[in-house]
């Protein structure tokens, strides 16, 4: 239904009308998340279709329909502050609810560990975090070994604390290793998400500096084109590195992928294009 880069125009027309198959609709939705050109083509189609709808010859509703409507209105409460009917980011004007103040990754982690993990498991978690941050196969092997050790009660929670402090410190050098020489390494990120608990880890490198008043925001992309879910905001350090460790994220989501956008400080309820990092 599409070439290598874009959705076919005819399919975008059908998508605008909901006339594709469910599979094609999903594929198109996913593509639109990352393609400004197709999104613009879709917008033009939707303008045309809105006009098409409005060419319908007007017919007055039944005379007593207004009375019925007003009677229903009188018993229907307004739903202030529930932004569930937001429109697309570029056209929606809802004022998002004030985001909850987020804890620092380190504080979050400490609270989380103290609340959820006793000594042995904490060691396994620490190694998991390192694996996320550095994405090294050997660390993954270490994770496996550490899990075994943790089960045997050999892990040390003090060691865990030191590891976590190192992982989230702004006074360490973080280097992403590439094959060969990369003059200007691209931004990249890694995410680990556990749906059952909503636990989420992110490590990103080579991020561009943010303008004043802006933040990066991570999104969980849901299947079926459902609204992306916000999963935490973060800012890179001077070297372009950032990490979110066990930030509270929505649980129970069958994550289709993840995306990162730039939002106003404090975060947003809906992503603002462009998506600067994405993966599935």
């Amino acid at each position: 239904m599409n070439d290598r880069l874009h959705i076919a125009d005819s399919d975008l027309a059908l998508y605008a009308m909901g006339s594709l198959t469910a599979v094609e609709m999903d594929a198109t939705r996913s593509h639109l998340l990352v393609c400004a050109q197709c999104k613009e083509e879709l917008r033009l189609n939707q303008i045309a279709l809105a006009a098409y709808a409005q060419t319908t010859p007007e017919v007055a509703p039944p005379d007593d329909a207004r009375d019925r409507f007003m009677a229903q209105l009188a018993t229907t409460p307004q739903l202030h502050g529930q932004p569930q009917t937001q429109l697309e980011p570029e056209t929606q004007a809802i004022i998002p609810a004030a985001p909850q103040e987020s804890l620092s990754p380190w504080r979050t982690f400490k609270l989380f560990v103290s609340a959820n993990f006793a000594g042995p498991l904490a060691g396994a978690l620490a190694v998991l975090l390192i694996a996320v941050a550095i994405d090294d196969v050997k660390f993954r092997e270490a994770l496996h070994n550490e899990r075994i050790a943790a089960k045997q009660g050999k892990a040390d929670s003090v060691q865990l604390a030191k590891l976590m402090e190192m992982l989230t410190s702004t006074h360490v050098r973080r280097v992403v290793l590439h094959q060969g020489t990369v003059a200007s390494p691209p931004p990249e990120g890694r995410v680990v998400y556990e749906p059952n608990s909503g636990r989420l880890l992110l490590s990103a490198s080579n991020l561009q500096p943010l303008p004043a008043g802006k933040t990066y925001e991570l999104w969980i992309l849901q299947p079926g084109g459902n609204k992306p879910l916000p999963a935490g905001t973060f800012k890179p350090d001077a070297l372009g590195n950032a990490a979110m460790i066990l930030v509270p994220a929505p649980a129970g989501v069958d994550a289709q992928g993840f995306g990162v956008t730039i939002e106003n400080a404090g975060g947003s309820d809906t992503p603002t294009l462009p998506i600067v990092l994405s993966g599935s």
Partner: protein
Amino acid sequence: MDDAALLEAVAEGSQDAMAAVYDRYSRIVYCIALRVLREPGLAEDVMQEVLLQVWKRPQSFVSQRGNLGAWLSVVTRNRSIDVLRKRSPLDQLDPLDEIRLPDPRDMALASEQNWLMEKVRVAIDSLPEEQQDPLELAYFHGLSHTEIAEKTGSPLGTVKTRIRAGLMTIRKAMNP
């Protein structure tokens, strides 16, 4: 009072303002629902549901958009198709939070200038039937391209091409 001011009054809980919204848009909402559903009772139900959305969450519309008519038209068509396909509100064709609204400035042109609508009507009327029909079947009857191909006996690719051509004709009429 323009739409933005009307919606701000609705957001403040004014039933009079909501009555004004009804008076302004109930005809277009009802006629679109009726065109899709072809049953007055169902069309009225959809009309009430769509307009009550504005009442329930006016803050979703209060903005610089000012194209409430276009938005209501799209939402009404989609909700009517859902009813036609007997989908529940929880399994809508195009949930409200996914609807991509046209640019407000573009739709201000489309919705506020009758001459432009007339141009679109003329453009649609000028389409050969083989292009009008697939567009009508897809948009107002809610048929998939496969269903249209079966119904018209045309190859799938031809159906797609004709729908696309019909849409392009409308776009050209709006932006010559």
